[in-house]
């Protein structure tokens, strides 16, 4: 039933092309989403009324609506008002915006869990708010946010499959094309499933190593 020659010669090459696209998406979107999350979280906690409101509105929208709807708006909706993105770009932007919102919630929680005394001590030394946030608050908050943010990044690895729905042919898309052509859905998607499990495991291991490296006694 499972023909290995099919898998090796017909299935794998296009799948590996798809994997490469998936990897590109993740390498681009994961760090960018994290940075966006930091900016939004800082804006929400330390910004003035307007900035804080905008950040809250952003988070509310991107966490309250499905990623797929956001992707559709970016790829199918925007052209009607004159903005055209390629499938890859639309997918990447969607992932960055969406994961940015989730990261910002984890980071915001972490920032708010830092004792007020840290900010007071920094200001007492003469640091302005910006320096205090950059050198004192964020180094601690980001460490505390690592579990949540790691979770979000592994989640991104899985949700990258939705890029296929806006015609960006990453791993899942490549598989569906082959499966459609040869009617071998079970084999194809089992192989795809295994590849995703592998990717998730690799990313999780990597993030765990990162967390160990950044560990400070007594923090977190």
């Amino acid at each position, binding site marked *: 039933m499972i023909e290995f020659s099919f898998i090796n010669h017909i299935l794998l090459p296009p799948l590996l092309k798809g994997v490469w696209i998936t990897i590109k998406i993740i390498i681009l979107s994961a760090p960018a989403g994290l940075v966006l999350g930091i900016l939004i979280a800082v804006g929400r906690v330390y910004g003035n009324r307007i900035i804080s409101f905008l950040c809250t509105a952003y988070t509310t929208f991107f966490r309250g609506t499905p990623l797929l709807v956001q992707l559709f708006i970016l790829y199918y909706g925007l052209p009607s008002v004159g903005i055209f993105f390629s499938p890859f770009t639309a997918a990447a932007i969607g992932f960055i915006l969406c994961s940015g919102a989730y990261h910002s919630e984890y980071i915001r929680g972490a920032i708010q869990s830092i004792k007020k*005394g840290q900010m007071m001590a920094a200001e007492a*030394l*003469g640091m302005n708010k910006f320096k205090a946030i950059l050198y004192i608050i964020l180094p*601690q908050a980001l460490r505390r946010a690592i579990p949540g943010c790691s979770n979000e990044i592994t989640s991104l690895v899985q949700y990258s499959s939705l890029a296929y729905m806006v015609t960006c042919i990453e791993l899942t898309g490549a598989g569906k094309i082959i499966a459609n052509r040869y009617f071998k859905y079970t084999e194809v998607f089992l192989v795809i499933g295994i590849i995703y499990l592998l990717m998730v495991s690799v990313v999780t291991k990597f993030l765990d190593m990162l967390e160990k490296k950044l560990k400070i006694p007594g923090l977190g």
Partner: protein
Amino acid sequence: MPEEKKIILQVEDICKKYGKEEVLKGISFEVRKGDTKVIIGPSGTGKSTLLRCINQLTIPDKGKVWLEGEEVTHSKKSINQFRQKIGMVFQDFNLFDHLTALKNIEIGLIKVKGIKKEEAKKKAIEELRQVGLEQQANLYPAQLSGGQKQRVSIARALAMDPSVMLFDEPTSALDPELIGEVLEVIKMLAIKGMTMVLVTHEMGFARSVANEIIFMEEGKILESGPPYKLFNNPKYERTKKFLKKITELYGESDEKND
């Protein structure tokens, strides 16, 4: 007769309200170079708030603060420049948890004063040595005892070369056996001539280092004067009562009474 010492810190008519509660009702005093002023009083009388109003961590509703002749409260200069010259030591230490003891002291020097890393490290090690903790330079706050943490935080404030040091109940969060090491350091500072304002419950210590004791009650200064006068011959009955209660609770230090 030594010439009159320079006024380092002047505080005039500081008032602060939290909601409906008036915490500070017009506090005024001055601190001259080398003075050690100790503020005492029942809990909740706004002593901590007063200290934070001096370096504007809390903005007073009314009143003015002068540092070495320059007005702090309505200045065009950024408050951060004044804060560099006012050292503050907190009850909860507030060491930066993600930095080693050494880096805690360096960071103000590097990021606020703009001193180069090499120089900052040298100065930081020297400050740690002064408080007896150079062996602990590379430990993180979580690895230090309470007394060690407070000594590092004193070193951190001193490294900025402040004109005046503010201590907000520096030993209240410490286990009894650790209090002594911190008081030693503060005493050493006083002997060296540092200008200080100290809020504390340690009466024995206050008596031995203070040249003036200020008794605050209900947001106002009730009376003030040199230790021997306040302890032996206070003007008000309430002062006497408070001192008696506090001395019973916290005990005298091992210093000889004057």
